[in-house]
Every structure is written in C-alpha cells, then in structure tokens.
C-alpha cells in the first residue's frame, strides 16, 4: 500500500539546512495498523506530512497504492488526498461553524457527490462512530472525544485507502484515548490500513507494528503483540 525508498527531507532554517529525514525505507501492506514512534524532532511528523502528500520529499521515491507520488501539481495532489487518504489530527481540525454532519460531508463535497447521497453517507459514518444523535451539533458543543470521533468519521467518509493519524489521542484524557483507540482498532479489523504517529507507549502498543524513529532514521521496526484497548476502558 505504501512504499518508501531512501526518503530524504531537509528544511532551511536561516542559513543552515536542517536534515530531518535521512534515508527512510519503509513499507506498509494493506490492512496493517502501524504506529510511528519517536521523540519530538525525530522527524515523525515530517514523515507523516510526506505520506499525506501535504509536503514533498527532497529525494527518494514514494508509491501510494502503486501510484508514484512525485512532482504533483496542487490540483492532482488535492485529488489524491481526497481519494487515497484520510487525516485525523491531534487538534481535531473540525470547521467550527459547520455541524458535525456537514464536517463529515466535507470531503464528499470535493468529490462532487450529490447532496442527498452525501448526507446519507455522512450519517452512516456518524452512526458508525456512535454520534448519530449529535449530527446537528456544532463542534463547540461536543466533548474532545466526540470531536475526535467526528474527525474519524470525516476521515472515513471518502473511503480512503489509508488513514493517517497524527497524535490522535494527544489532546484527550486516558480513558477517552482508549475509547478512541478501540474505535481505531475496530476500523482496522474491518481491513482499513492505518498509520498512527504517537509518542505514547501505551497507544503504540495498541497497534500491530511499531516503527521507532530517531534523528531521521528508523532504528527499530518490529511487530507488536496488539493490546486491545477495550480491556483498559
């Protein structure tokens, strides 16, 4: 599903160039639930941004579902993001003035889906995350956990190949974090490929594979005995 070879990325900071990713080789098969771990500055967010086609690598190749991601113009990049990827952010990134269901429907608008289909589908995903009753509420009327559920429903709405989650439990308390992780595990069990970036050990252990990043290189990449989040709730 994801194929990365010899990926380099550096940022210009003043006159110096900061080499963030120093040759990443990495692949994810369909249906995997992978966590990328590392302390801050290890390059894990940069890697996620490149995987999400929000940023571009300086060097190396990236294939997403067999499609080479290289030198895309912004229009095609937007199209690929819409078709292939679902994003879940630490700060939820919902649009404040839109109701939950409208937030979920957003990626579908950009697919050009008709209103009726869109609303049905968005409602179905809201049901899936257990928020059908909250469809008409604006984000500021929802709790953190509920917001993240809306964000997950939104990420799923366009039926992407890969879900990319950036510190998805970073803004949540432990109990809610585990509930969210339970949801993520459930989605993964249905066959969705999911990448989770986190620096929390317990969250990482709830995934099936842990990749450890340090100073821009992968120092460890091993399978993990998945801990079911439901046990901790």
């Amino acid at each position: 599903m994801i194929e990365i070879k010899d990926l380099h990325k550096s940022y210009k900071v003043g006159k110096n160039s900061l080499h963030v990713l120093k040759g990443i080789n990495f692949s994810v098969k369909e249906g995997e639930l992978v966590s990328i771990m590392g302390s801050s500055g290890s390059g894990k967010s940069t890697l996620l941004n490149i995987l999400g086609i929000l940023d571009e690598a300086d060097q190396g190749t990236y294939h997403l579902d067999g499609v080479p991601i290289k030198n895309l113009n912004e229009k095609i990049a937007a199209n690929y993001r819409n078709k292939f990827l679902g994003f879940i952010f630490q700060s939820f990134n919902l649009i404040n003035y839109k109701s939950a269901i409208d937030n979920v429907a957003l990626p579908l608008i950009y697919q050009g889906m008709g209103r009726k289909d869109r609303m049905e589908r968005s409602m179905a995903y809201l049901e899936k995350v257990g928020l059908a009753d909250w469809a008409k509420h604006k984000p500021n009327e929802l709790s953190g956990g509920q917001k993240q559920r809306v964000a997950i429903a939104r990420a799923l709405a366009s039926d992407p190949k890969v879900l990319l989650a950036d510190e998805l439990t970073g803004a949540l308390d432990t109990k809610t974090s585990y509930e969210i992780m339970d949801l993520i595990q459930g989605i993964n069990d249905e066959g969705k490929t999911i990448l989770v970036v986190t620096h929390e050990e317990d969250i990482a252990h709830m995934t099936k594979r842990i990749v450890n990043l340090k100073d821009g290189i992968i120092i460890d990449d091993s399978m993990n005995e998945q801990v079911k989040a439901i046990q901790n709730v």
Partner: protein
Amino acid sequence: MFSRDKWNEILESLTSNVFRTVLTAFGVFWGIFILVILLAAGTGLENGIKRGFAGIATNSMFMWSQTASKPYDGLPKGRRYNFDLSDVEALKANVNGLEYVSPRNQLGGFGGANNVTKGLKTGAFDVYGDYPDVINQEPMDIVEGRFLNMNDINVNRKVAVIGEGVVDALYDKDEEALGSYIKINGVNFMVIGVYKKKSGMGRDIEEAQKQIYVPFTSFSQAFNYGDRVSWMAVTADDNHSITQLKSQVFDIIKKRHRIHPEDDRAIGNFDLYEQFKKIQGLFLALNLVAYFVGILVLLSGVIGISNIMLIVVKERTKEIGIRRALGASPWNIRGQVLLESVFLTIISGMAGIVFATSILAIVNFFLSNMEDNSEVMFVNPSVNLFVVVVAMTILIISGLLAGFIPAQNAVKVKPVDALRTE
C-alpha cells in the same frame, strides 16, 4: 458552481461575523449609493435645464442685418441694408432642409420707451410683427382666444396676441382682455388672444410674458416698414442641423444684397443649436464627473472588501489547510473566496442601488407635489436601466478584483504550513 452547498458555505462564513460583514458591505453600499445619486442628480439638473428649452425648436438660429464691413461690387463699406420679404422666399426655395423661415419686425425692445397704451395705462413692451409659424419656434400656451393665423396676414387685420404680463400691466383685475383694443404707437389693435410662455428663450421668463404679437403684414403697414424684415428665425428640419445650413443661408443673403462673400460681419446671428449643444456638452462632462467620482468612491469600498477578505483568508488559513487536506483543489478555494467577495459586493451594491432609488423616489414625490415647481432647476432626477446595468457590471468586476488577491493568498500557503498555523 451555483449549487446550494456553495451558497450555504458562503452564507455560513459571512454570517459567522455579521458585524464585520455589515461594516465591510457598507463601503460598497456607500460607493454605489453615491454613484447612483450623482448620476441621478446630473439627470435631474439636465432635465431641469432642458425644460427651459422645452418645445423650443432648438435647431434654430436668429439672424439680423448689420452693416457691410467690406467694400464690394462698387459699394463702400459701412453700408446699411435690410432683409426683405423676397429673401424669405429665396431662402425657402433655395436651401434644402429648412423647416421654417419666419420673418419678424420689432418695435420696442430692451429699455424701450412706453409704446402701448390702453385707456389710462401705459407700458413698454416688445411688439413683434410675425407669421403664424412662429408659434412652432417659440412655443407658448394660448390661455385665452387664439393665435395669429394666415387670414390675419392676408387681410392685414389689426389684431394682437398679448402675454399675461401685458394683461397684468394694462388691465384691471377681472377685466376681459379679449375683444378690447390696445394702442400700439398710436395704432389700435384688437386683442384676440392671451399667451403664456414656459421658457424665456435664454432670457428672463418674466420678460417673456411681456410681448405682443401682431400679424407681420399689418405691422409693416401700420408702422411703415414696407417689405423690410428686421430679423428672421430660421429652423432646420430634423435631418439637418442649422449649424451646417447656416453658411448656405448666409451665402444666399450675401449674393442678394451684394455683400462681399467673406464679409462675416454683415449678418448678425444667434445660433440656438450651438448653444444647446454646448449645454449638452456640459451635461456630458457632468455625467463623466459623476461616473469618475462615483467609481472612485466605489473603489474605496471595493478596497475595503479586498482588505477584509485578506483578513478573512488570514484568519481562516487553518480552515483552508484542513479543506485542502480533505481534498479541496486550489480552484475550490479560490472559487470560494471569489464567490464570497462577489456575493458580498453584489448584495451590498444592490442594497445601495435600492436605497439610492428610494431616496430618489422620495425626492421625486416632493418635487411633483410642489405647488409651482417651474422655478426649480431640478426635474425628475432618475437613473435609467442602462445605468443600473452598468453599475451591476462594475460591481461584479470589482467584486472579482476585490477577491482576486485574497484568493491568490489563500492558495499560496502550502497545506502543511496552513495546517500548522493556530
């Protein structure tokens, strides 16, 4: 492009900060308001001034004889000559495109002595010997009796049509003017009609009511003018302008009176059409000024919108980042910003147009309800549909311009940077 979702998005984002939206809209509202009001005021003034010319054959000139200023054909300079009735016939026969040629003789005039008496009252009035055609060139309302006709001319009737000003000066209140006699320079004329003029032909409207019209032929006979003509009013038909025909007319007169072909001072003339065109030019200039000022005011409103859109885009950088992460193409984003600014511009512009036209409606209401509005230099201030269409076009274009830079800014930021802003 105009789907319900787009409108929802626009309304949602505009209503998310109503106060700011209203303030921003006010700039454009005010601009278009000023533009419409200025144009309407121009039209009102133009209507008012043109009412002064109402009914007057503006395609006319008046000509009178002066003295020859160049020796010619054995005749010295400084020679006096007069138009005569055969000149009138010659002009009618030889110049193509003339509608009326009215000869006129005149008694009295500016600063003249008392020349008309009735009973114990006397007054100084302009007395014209005229043909009936003159009513087409100097329109007047006959409020009592009738105007001169060709029978009066043919049988030299000593009849007179007098103005309301003459009635006021010579008659007692409630005294019947029709059928009475007035004595002009010692000759009795019977009053057959009373007129009222709406415009003063460039002169005082009050003075215009103090004139007396008598048949040309009886005037000549009574005051011993022979076939002399002191001046002529010449009107061209609708297909010709008198300014073009002028030289032809002069050439014929010069030939008939043995005047040097290049003697421009021998014939005095007043070209009403030229004056009229000057006034029209003035209003064209006035209109241009209105457009110029209005559009500049509008422009500052548009800049206001542009400014706010920049702020909106800046504020919503993160939202735009989210949308792009979810698959919004650059044109989705640009389109949204542009549509928002065009929508805002058009709505506020429409409000401005509606407000301005309602003000105009109120002004019109008061103007038309005034007892006597003949002295008001302001008639029916209004804008026509064309102006509204022009204003709308300006609005749409300026809305697009206002949105263009902010829209460009919105897609300039990389999605990853946009997501990172707080």
